[in-house]
Structure formats: structure tokens, C-alpha cells
């Protein structure tokens, strides 16, 4: 198992922009040394950057370690230590990279399996160099689809075109650390400015950019309606934004739901956290790179304490440490900006973070919180009431997967969290008692005020199940927030961990979502150093709700990247950010979550496969990213 190679990856930046796909960073996984050698040779002849592995486990750890380090993965189907399809799933969930399966087996069933598991191609061995030459198309296509998502949701459109034109070359040639993702992201940002691009890849539709404010309105509307009743038409009416069509809202709603779904699936695994972090970074990395500096600079001063906290959390490693713009500021923008910077961090820190594992950005807030922490939270939460727990109540609805979650949710039921349709895929959205949709958060507003809402904070507690499982989706937010608030726990992570017992990959994004929550929760904490302090929260929270939403959004994007594992990392990442505005963030989340719940229930009704497929196809990442992207774009850099 050689890994080799990353050298070229790292120096990708030197590549000449016009030489795409030269420098495409490929990871090859095959237990057969003969095949591996041949493939590597072919890839090198195509001038790709090759890293090879003979074990799936090694490949996964490489991918996790170098989040943005690869553009595409080639994997054999039959491997001794792990089934190729399983690896495919993990990659799809955690990193969302295009994966090409290979096998000497050309039976229809096997090929079908590849398709259903999300492989973007299936090559029959012996693989010919012609087939290898064209693998770059999958990378481009994936990016394009993500952009498309953005477009379809009414956001920036034609990013794809622009991106492809400008980025193709640059993408691959950009520094390895950036990863192709980053490039695309960056491009997306650029593209956002270009509203008038031809939309060759998607249908022509009026361009709607979902700015933070718009999203806030959207979330407010959804929250008001309640997750269960949030239908595009009504949301549109409530939002009352001239020029906005029902379609715009519908697609945005869908993305949101996906996001929530992802969020709820956040796993609590440390590694996930790390990964998430990294992935978040990846996601944002590219785009953020540019913004990072700005944001950081701007945010830098935001809350030294939060920063400190974060640093304490160990996040400090990342460069962000100092710059962590923990935007305690109410502005949503800040939140985003934080996220970005953070994300960026991720890139740099990735390895770093990985080590730290708990991206405990939020130190106080166990962003990375491993489940145990959550458990703690939960316990406390229970006493508090079920704000978050409500989520669990909702959870019951969900399908088996979210069972863990659901249970938690159910138990917490105290508040109206009903939301979380715990279908496996659904993120645990604490419908929140009050707000109804947003899991925990809904009472979130109440919750936010920990002091007022004792129950809120740890709805988790109420549900035993919850204890460690933090509803991934929205739930985490709530939970976290609550938890954090009230007790300063931040065990959110723990909860998540448990939540995800089964399908980590279902929630790849969930992870992000979770993080979000956590961050929120933790965010609150940060203010007081994760302590229950800061909560002054209630008021803050309300205000912060806005932020939360934003943060949530960011999370959303992050989700894409993160996988279960990621979730954690992301959360961690976000946490620092949110720490400042955490309160805010959370508040927002609540409503979102609730709405999300609805979304999820609707969407997740179907089998996991569906969701998985949906997830994949809809590019949850894309959605998340796009969200972040657009949010980011629209937010004034801090």
C-alpha cells in the first residue's frame, strides 16, 4: 500500500492552467499489485497525479487526511479488507468525490450495484488507457451538477459554464491544498457575480440568488408555517418577496431538506469530525480561500474569547486560531464568514485537525463531541425538557435509521419538537415545540434562553436514546444549543455519534448539520467559553437565530462535504464560528429545523436508498455548498 504520491498533489498549484486535466489527482485502490501497477502507469501517462493504495482502509484514511487532496477515486470491487461498494459509499458520504469502480467482473448485477451505490462509472478490467484518459469527465460533470443545483434552486446560475470555462484549467492546476472543490467554489463565487451567464447546462430560469436575508426570510416562513406545513406556495406567500417564484422556493426548500437530512445524519465519530472538518474545509476551502483572509481579518477581532475558547478547544491549531473570526456579531454574514475561514482552516489544518480530532473548535462546546459528550448533554437536556428532545419525539417518526435519533427525539419530546421525522435519513429536526419545526430550536427561541427554558437545553437528556445521539439534522442544532446553553455541555457530538449508529453515510451532510448545531450550542458556549454562560442567550438567541440560520446554512454547505465523520469536524469547525454568534445561529436553526423536519419527512419517507440516492444525486453537497456559496457571496465578508 503505497501511498506515495501525494507529492504531486501538493504541488498542483504549479500546473499550468491550460493543461487540464493534467494534474488531476487520482487515488487508485486495488489489492492486486499487478493491476495497481498498470493503472498507475496508465494514469501517469495521462499526466495525472496518482496515489495508489492496495487496501481500502488505507485509501479511506488517506482521503480523510487529505480532504482536498484528490479529485477522483478509482477502486476495485473485490478487495479483501473491505468491499469496494462499501468504500464507494463511504467516499460518497464523507468526501463526495466521484468514484469509478473497476472489476474483471462484467456481470450485469455487479455493474448495477455500482450504479446504485453511486459510482460514476464502472470499468471492466483489463482497463485500457483510453478509458483512463477520460476519467476527468466525471470530475467536471460532478462539479457541473453541483453548480446546477445552485442554479436550480434559483441561485447563481450558470456557474457551471463559467466555472468550466475559467476553472477547468485552473482547477486542476491550483494548489493541491485547494482541491478541486475549492476551485469550483471559488468559481462559483465568481460566477455569482455573473448573473447573466448563459445557462447552457440548465433550463433558463429567472435567476434568484438566495442571499442570507432571503434565506432568513425563507426560514422564518418555514418556521412560521411549521415544518409539516411548509409548502412552497405558502412559504412564498409568507415571504412576500416580489419576483420570487414558487419554483424558486420549492427548489430551495428541497435543498434545505436535503441539508437537514444530512445534518441529522451526523455521526459522532471523531474521525468523522475530523473528516467533516476537513471536508467542510474542502467545501469551503476553495471558495473560501479568497474570502478567508478577508473574513478572518474582519472577524478576527470578534471575539477574542471565542477564539480563545476555540483555541482551547484545540482548534487552535488551525491557523484560524487567531483569526477565527468568531463572529459573535449578529450579522449573519459574520457567521458565514466564519465558516469560511474556518473551512479554510480546514484545509490547512486538515491534517492538523485530524490529529486533534475533535475539532473542538468550540472547546467548550464539544463540537467534536463525541457522543459521550452528547450523552452528557442529553442527560442534562432531559432534565431540561425536551426542546431538543422533542426532536426525538419526532424521531420516532423516522424510519429505522434514525432510530437512534428518533428515539432520542421521542424521548425528549417534551417540547414540541416533533419535527424530526426520523426516517433514517432525516436529520433530526427538533421540531421544536414552539416553533414546531425546528427541532429543538423551535423552542429554540426558548431554548436559546436557557435560563428560561431549562428543558430546552437538553432535550436530549430526556430521551435515553438520545443520550448520545444527537439528532443529526436539525436536532443537533437544537440540542446543542440547548445543551450548551443550559449546561454548557456541548455534548452534542456525542449525541450525534450515537445517532449515527447505522448509516453514517446517510447523513453525510448531517454531520454538517450537526456540527452546526453544535456549534450553535457551543456557540453559545463560546461566548462564555462554552459555558453556559453566554447565554444571555435568550435574547441573543433570538437575534442569533438569524445567525444560526446563516450558520446553519453554512453548515449546510459543509454538509456536503462532510460525511458522518465530517459532520463532526464540521461542527467543530463551525463551532468556533458560531461560538460567537452561536446563539444566533441556533435560533435560526430552530425554525429551520422544524421546517426541515417537514422536509425530511417528506423526503425521507422513502427508503434509505432513495434518500441516499437523492442525497447523492441532489448533491447534497451541491446544495450545501451552493447554500454556503450563495450565502457567502451574499454576505458581506466580515
Amino acid at each position, binding site marked *: 500500500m503505497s501511498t506515495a504520491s501525494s507529492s504531486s498533489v501538493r504541488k498542483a498549484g504549479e500546473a499550468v492552467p491550460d493543461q487540464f486535466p493534467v494534474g488531476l489527482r487520482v487515488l487508485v485502490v486495488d489489492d492486486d*499489485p*499487478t*493491476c495497481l501497477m498498470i493503472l498507475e502507469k496508465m494514469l501517469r501517462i495521462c499526466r495525472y497525479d496518482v496515489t495508489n493504495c492496495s487496501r481500502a482502509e488505507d485509501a479511506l484514511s488517506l482521503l480523510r487526511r487529505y480532504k482536498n487532496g484528490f479529485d477522483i477515486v478509482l477502486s476495485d470491487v*473485490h478487495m479483501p479488507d473491505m468491499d469496494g461498494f462499501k468504500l464507494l459509499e463511504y467516499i460518497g458520504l464523507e468526501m463526495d468525490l466521484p468514484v469509478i469502480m473497476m472489476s*474483471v467482473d462484467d456481470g450485469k448485477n455487479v455493474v448495477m450495484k455500482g450504479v446504485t451505490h453511486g459510482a460514476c462509472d464502472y470499468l471492466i478490467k*483489463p482497463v*485500457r*488507457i483510453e478509458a483512463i484518459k477520460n476519467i476527468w469527465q466525471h470530475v467536471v460533470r460532478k462539479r457541473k451538477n453541483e453548480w446546477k443545483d445552485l442554479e436550480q434552486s434559483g441561485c447563481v446560475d450558470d456557474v457551471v459554464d463559467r466555472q468550466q470555462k475559467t476553472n477547468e484549467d485552473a482547477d486542476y492546476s491550483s494548489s493541491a491544498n485547494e482541491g478541486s472543490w475549492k476551485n469550483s467554489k471559488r468559481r462559483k463565487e465568481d460566477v455569482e457575480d455573473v448573473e447573466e451567464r448563459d445557462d447552457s447546462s440548465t433550463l433558463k430560469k429567472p435567476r434568484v440568488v438566495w442571499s442570507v436575508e432571503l434565506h432568513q426570510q425563507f426560514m422564518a416562513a418555514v418556521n412560521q408555517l411549521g415544518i409539516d406545513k411548509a409548502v412552497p406556495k405558502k412559504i412564498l406567500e409568507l415571504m412576500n418577496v416580489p419576483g420570487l417564484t414558487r419554483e424558486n422556493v420549492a427548489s430551495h426548500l428541497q435543498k434545505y431538506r436535503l441539508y437537514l437530512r444530512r445534518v441529522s445524519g451526523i455521526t459522532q465519530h471523531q474521525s468523522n469530525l475530523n473528516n467533516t472538518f476537513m471536508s467542510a474545509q474542502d467545501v469551503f476551502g476553495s471558495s473560501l480561500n479568497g474570502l478567508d483572509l478577508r473574513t478572518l481579518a474582519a472577524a478576527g477581532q470578534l471575539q477574542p474569547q471565542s477564539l480563545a475558547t476555540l483555541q482551547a478547544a484545540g482548534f487552535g491549531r488551525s491557523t484560524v486560531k487567531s483569526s477565527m473570526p468568531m463572529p459573535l456579531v449578529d450579522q449573519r454574514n459574520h457567521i458565514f464568514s466564519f465558516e469560511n475561514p474556518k473551512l479554510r482552516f480546514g484545509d490547512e489544518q486538515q491534517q492538523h485537525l485530524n490529529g486533534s480530532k475533535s475539532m473542538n473548535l468550540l472547546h467548550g462546546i464539544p463540537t467534536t463531541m463525541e457522543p459521550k459528550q452528547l450523552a452528557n448533554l442529553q442527560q442534562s437536556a432531559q432534565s431540561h425538557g425536551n426542546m431538543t428532545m422533542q426532536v426525538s419525539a419526532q424521531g420516532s417518526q423516522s424510519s429505522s435509521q434514525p432510530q437512534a435519533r428518533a428515539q432520542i427525539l421521542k424521548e425528549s419530546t417534551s417540547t414540541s419538537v416533533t419535527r424530526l421525522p426520523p426516517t433514517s435519513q432525516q436529520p433530526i429536526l427538533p421540531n421544536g415545540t414552539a416553533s414546531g419545526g425546528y427541532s429543538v430550536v423551535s423552542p429554540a427561541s426558548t431554548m436559546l434562553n436557557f435560563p428560561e427554558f431549562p428543558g430546552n437545553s437538553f432535550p436530549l437528556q430526556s430521551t435515553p436514546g438520545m443520550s448520545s445521539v444527537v439528532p443529526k439534522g436539525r436536532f443537533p442544532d437544537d440540542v446543542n444549543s440547548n445543551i450548551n446553553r443550559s449546561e454548557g455541555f456541548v455534548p452534542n457530538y456525542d449525541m450525534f455519534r450515537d445517532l449515527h449508529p447505522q448509516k453514517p453515510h446517510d447523513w453525510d451532510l448531517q454531520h454538517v448539520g450537526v456540527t452546526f448545531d453544535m456549534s450553535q450550542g457551543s456557540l453559545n458556549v463560546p461566548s462564555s467559553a462554552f459555558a453556559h454562560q453566554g447565554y444571555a442567550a435568550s435574547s441573543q438567541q433570538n437575534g442569533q437565530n438569524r445567525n444560526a440560520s446563516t450558520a446553519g446554512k453554512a453548515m449546510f454547505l459543509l454538509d456536503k462535504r462532510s460525511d458522518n465523520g465530517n459532520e463532526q469536524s464540521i461542527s467543530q469547525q463551525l463551532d468556533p464560528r458560531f461560538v460567537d454568534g452561536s446563539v444566533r445561529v441556533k435560533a435560526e436553526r430552530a425554525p429551520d429545523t422544524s421546517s426541515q423536519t417537514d422536509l425530511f419527512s417528506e423526503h425521507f419517507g422513502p427508503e434509505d436508498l432513495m434518500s441516499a440516492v437523492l442525497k447523492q444525486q441532489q448533491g447534497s453537497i451541491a446544495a450545501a455548498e451552493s447554500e454556503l456559496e450563495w450565502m457567502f457571496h451574499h454576505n458581506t465578508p466580515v
Partner: protein
Amino acid sequence: MEVGLMQRQWVEYTKSLFLEDFLDSQFIELQKLQDEGNPDFIAEVVSLFFEDSERLLNDLTAALAQPDVDFQKIDGHVHQLKGSSSSIGAQRVKNVCITMRSFCEEQNIEGCLRCLQQLKQEICLVKNKLENLFRMEQQIVAAGGSIPTTELIF
């Protein structure tokens, strides 16, 4: 022996290998991958294959010698052998693998044992053939000539 003659002999020999199915078009693909910068590429890959296949053959022999034959495990080994042999273009070896896999499916020990025997034979044969080929190539190069490019015309 003069270079031209050696080259012609090499061409004839190569052709026969293809005609007799010892090698297939994949081998030509491999040859395309070899260049001045990497003149020993094929030799390396091929020796890697033989090492690996030896290991697999041992595993297969051991597995088939068990009182309770684990056909799934055997299938796994054969599958891998099929993959690597097809990667270097060892067609006959690959064909035996295909046959052996269906015996595995039928849980036919006899069939599997026969195939195993055949595998050993074929691998040995193609190994010798390739060794001859490489030796001829070395001689050509040593004599200052270059190895003709193989084109599968037939």
C-alpha cells in the same frame, strides 16, 4: 546474430504467442505503456504477476485441500487471478479462471482441482514464453537494435 534477424524472430515469436492465445491485445496495451523512460515496465509488471499468481496458486491449493472446501474463498482467489492475468494479457490463464469460477459456483471440487492443475500449467507456459520473449528483446537491444512495435493485425 544480426539485429534484423533477431527482430524478425522476435516478431514471429510474438505473433505466435498471440495466435496461440497466450497473449491477447491487453499485452499490446502494456507495450504501449513502456517507453524509453521506463524500458522495464513490462518486465516488472510481468514478474509482479508471476509472484502474485504463485501466491494465489498456493492459496488455491491449500483451500482445495481442506476437508471443508470454502468455495467462496476459492472464488475470491480465482477472481483475483482472473483480474491480474487479464491485466497483463495472459489470455489462456484468464480463460481457465473463468472455467474454474463456474466450477466454484457449482461447488464442483473435481472440476476445480482440474482447473487448478490447468492453471499451474498455463501460468508456467506463459511464463516461459514471456521469458523467451524478453530474452530476445534483451539481445536485440544489446546488439544495438530496437524492439519493433507490435500491432495486432490479425
